[in-house]
Each structure stands twice: as structure tokens, then as C-alpha cells.
């Protein structure tokens, strides 16, 4: 079966994000960018399913600036077969992303869509659910295991109190949580191979999707900083401070 995966380009999670002084956004110039870690887990899952003989083809989609090509090439170096870049200058909001993906999915007809559960930049956690909704497909979010059984998939999801088991009909959209797998490192030969894989570039207009933002960003600011703390020598001093100074115990 064919699988479609998504790959968002985000600021590297280990980079300290800085707010622009005019409060319009965050600094991205000369900042290290990477594939969203949850998207990376989604790609890895698709590749493992292909290696296990369950999946025949992996299509990877990214939406955004021309540099998202690099993100797609990373996914290809991991094992994705083909890429689609929906190129747009402005960042698309989750609903617009979902509509673009719906249009591509209707054309590509995958049996399974695997996405990251959230992007670590805007932390919205919406796209997978929205894609499933717009297609009228079932969804399984925050998954830590997926097993394909013919026309259905057995799912384990991470929930607040532990784990949940579901069975979803296929086609379906699933979103990857941290414990689904540990993504592989890409090797140089695979990076070279990835450069030769097909990558299609399309514009939102060609998909007939309205990508106008619904949310207007009024301000971007750093959170209030905490007041400086103190080092204490030992357990005795700590308990005294917690009792008499902080008064929390």
C-alpha cells in the first residue's frame, strides 16, 4: 500500500529561539533549521513499514519556503521515494495546511497518512486531526504503535492516564508520538541517492485551496522571566527554606 507522510521545516529544537525586537515574530535568519522531530518519527515509521513489506511507496509532502526542499531530501535520505513541495512564501496555518494536504491526498490516494503529532514551533497539534476530518477518515493521534490488518489498523495511543487501544478503518490518518520509534541517522550514500529522487514543486493555486490566514498575529513576546534562585548546601537547609521562606510545605 501507498503511504503519505508530511515533513515540516522548523527551527532546530536545541536552538534558543529569540523574539524579534519589533514583536512581529522570531529570528530565523542564520538559524539552524531541521525536520520537525515528530515528522521525522512519522517518516521513520513509513520506512520501517516499507522495509517490512507492508508499504510499497512513500510520498513525502512539505509546505512552505523553497528551502523545505532540504526537509524533503532528508525524508528521502531516510527512505521516502518521492517528494511534493507546496511552495508558499508565508507560513500556512494548520487549517490551510490541512486543506492543501487533502487536495494532494485525493490525487495520490494513499491508504495511510502518517504525520507528526505536533510541530515544535507553533505547538498547535491540529493538522492530522483536520486532514482526517476534511477527508471524512478516522484518526488516531499520539500513537505509539500501529499494526496493519488488511482493511483496518490496530493502534496504541498515548493518553493522559496511560495507553489506549483503537481499531481504525483504512484509509486513516495517524499522528506519531515520541515512543513510536527512534528515527535512524541518515548516511552519506543515502543523502546522495536522495538527490536523484523525484521532487515535484506545486503552488497552492494549482490545488485550488484558499490559504488566507484566519489568525492574525498581533504580538510576539518573551515570557516573563523568573526571579533568580539560590543555591543551598544540603537537605536540611532546603527543608528550612521551603518551610520558612517559600512556605510551600
Amino acid at each position, binding site marked *: 500500500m501507498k503511504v503519505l507522510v508530511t515533513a515540516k521545516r522548523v*527551527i532546530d*529544537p536545541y536552538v534558543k529561539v529569540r*523574539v524579534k525586537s519589533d514583536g512581529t515574530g*522570531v529570528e530565523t535568519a542564520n538559524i539552524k533549521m531541521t525536520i520537525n522531530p515528530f515528522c521525522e518519527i512519522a517518516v521513520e515509521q513509513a520506512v520501517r513499514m516499507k522495509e517490512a513489506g507492508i508499504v510499497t511507496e512513500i510520498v513525502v509532502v512539505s509546505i512552505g519556503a523553497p528551502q523545505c526542499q532540504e526537509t524533503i531530501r532528508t525524508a528521502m535520505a531516510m527512505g521516502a521515494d518521492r517528494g511534493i513541495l507546496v511552495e508558499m512564501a508565508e507560513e500556512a496555518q*494548520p*487549517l490551510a495546511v*490541512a486543506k492543501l494536504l487533502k487536495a494532494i491526498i485525493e490525487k495520490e490516494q494513499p491508504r495511510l497518512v502518517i504525520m507528526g*503529532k*505536533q510541530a*515544535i514551533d*507553533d*505547538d498547535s*497539534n*491540529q493538522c*492530522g*486531526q483536520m*486532514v*482526517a*476530518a*476534511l477527508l471524512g*477518515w*478516522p*484518526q*488516531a*493521534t*499520539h500513537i505509539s504503535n500501529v499494526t496493519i490488518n488488511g482493511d483496518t489498523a490496530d493502534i496504541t495511543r*498515548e*493518553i*493522559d*492516564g*496511560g495507553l*489506549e*487501544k*483503537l*481499531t*481504525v*478503518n483504512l484509509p486513516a490518518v495517524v499522528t506519531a*508520538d*515520541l515512543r513510536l520509534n527512534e528515527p535512524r541517522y541518515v548516511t552519506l550514500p543515502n543523502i546522495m541517492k536522495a538527490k536523484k529522487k523525484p521532487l515535484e514543486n506545486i503552488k497552492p493555486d494549482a490545488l485550488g485551496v484558499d490559504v488566507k490566514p*484566519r*489568525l*492574525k498575529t*498581533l*504580538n*510576539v*513576546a*518573551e*515570557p516573563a522571566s*523568573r526571579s533568580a*534562585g*539560590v543555591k*543551598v548546601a*544540603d*537537605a*536540611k537547609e532546603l527543608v528550612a*527554606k*521551603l518551610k520558612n521562606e*517559600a512556605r*510551600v*510545605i
Partner: protein
Amino acid sequence: MAILVIAEHDGKNLKPGTTNTITAAGKLGGDVTVLVAGHNCAEAGAAAVKIKGVAKVLVSDAPQFEGALAENITALVLSVAKNYTHIVAPATGMGKNFMPRVAALLDVQQISDISSVVSADTFVRPTYAGNVMTTVQSSDAIKVITVRATAFDPAGDGGSAAVETLAATSAAGLSKFNGQELTKSVRPELTAARIIVSGGRGMGSAENFKILEPLADKLGAAVGASRAAVDSGFVPNDYQVGQTGKIVAPELYVAVGISGAIQHLAGMKDSKVIVAINKDAEAPLFSIASYWIVDDLFKVVPELVTELG
């Protein structure tokens, strides 16, 4: 303004987070209706009636709402959505799961995880693991919102809302709920605890992690963990505090053997008092700690238990 809050509950009681969400909904200005959907959930509906600030409670009780399957809950919410200007739910595992589905089918851009209500259409939400606070204004006719519970006080008792039965929508037939494996604990729930003791990679093993238990007992605390501790298999996934785990803001957060990755800080940096115990004097967590001890946790933790008497 007419506001619909979708409650999270266990059939009997509302879950922590829902009452905070009702407080956030109250700040929008308008009548707050609470929807309790589930299977055998009449008791939870009766609990919602008593919450201050709730004008009406809708109860929809049917087998297809067991496990809060996103497809089925969404259909129910959509059946009444046009009566409301705002649809609000806690940004918990449940709310995160079904709310974007509701938003997409209403053709609305959801506003996730709000930490402040500026006005009926403008909200502040944390992004980039809580390192950036973004103020957004929605142009959609219906606002679909999830709420960061720790940013709002829980609504108290003292209400006497009217209860109505809401006709169940039929099962979507797309997915099947096969059950949950819930971690059993006698301790308070992480998201509702006044004190939390959390362990990280420094704990070393699942066996060693248990030394936090007597400390948690003394403090009446919940036990949490960093992602590193969960990934290493010391404790189950539902212990995880962080950007993509649970967001907590207790009175006291004791971090033991946690170095303090950005992703962990995102989940706990709004705690009132933070204590860090780590033998690495360079641990990033010290930069946000109220008090810290640079020493071997296997020495300090038992000493703490003794000192607490």
C-alpha cells in the same frame, strides 16, 4: 456570546482541567454551557451542575461516546455548534484529539492551548515550547479554543445550572474503542497535584527511580518524569512532564536528576517554587530553580526524607 465547554470526565467526576477551562470560558463574557458526553455519565453531568459560572449542562449518554472517540464526539459537538460563538475544551489528551476535527468541519482555524483571554476574539498562547508568547486575533465566526489549564484557576462549587438531555448522534463507524490501560496510582494526578516530585535520566534505572516514592509520600506529592526517564523505560509514558507531555504548574516542583532540556522546562517552568537536585553544577535547570543543591541525588533524597520527619 454563548460559550460551549466540552467537559472531560471519568463518568463520575469532571477531570482536573475542566473546571479551569470553565474559568477561562467565563472570561469570554457570556453564558457558559457545559457538554458532558459519555457512556453512563449522568453522575459527571450532576457534578458539572454544581460548578460556579455554569448556566446550563447538556448531557448526552450513549455507548458510542465511550472512550471519547474523536469521530463520534465531533459529530455530537457539530450537532449543536451553530448555537454558540465559542467552543472551548481543555488542552488535554482528549481536547487535543477531537477539537481540531470540530474546527476543520466548521471551517475554523482553532486556537490551541491559550494561556490568557485578551478579549472575545484575541488570545495569548505559548509557542516554541513556551519560550515565545504569541497574541493572536481570530477572524472566524465561531472560535474553537483549547485551554492551558494551569494558566487559569479552577472554578469552584456554588452553581445550580439547569440540566438538559442532548440527543446522541449516531456512531461514525470509522473506529472502534478497544479499551484503556491506565496506570494505577494512589497519588494525586500530576495535573492536579499541589506538589510534584520528578525524576530524570540521573535516576539511572527503574529500580533507582523508586527512591522518589518515600519523598513523594512525605510531601503528599505526585510523581512525574522527564522524557529521558520515560524513554529509558524507568516509568510509563503518562509520567512525562514537558512540551509534548503534561503541562504542570504546582506550588512546589522538585526536579531530581533532571538536567533541564528546553522541552522539559516547557512543561513545568510556571511552577511557583522549583527545587533542583543535580550533581552537575552546570545543569540548565538551575537557571530557573528557586533553590538548588549540587550533590549526589542518592545522598540528598534520603536525607530530605529524614529532614521532613
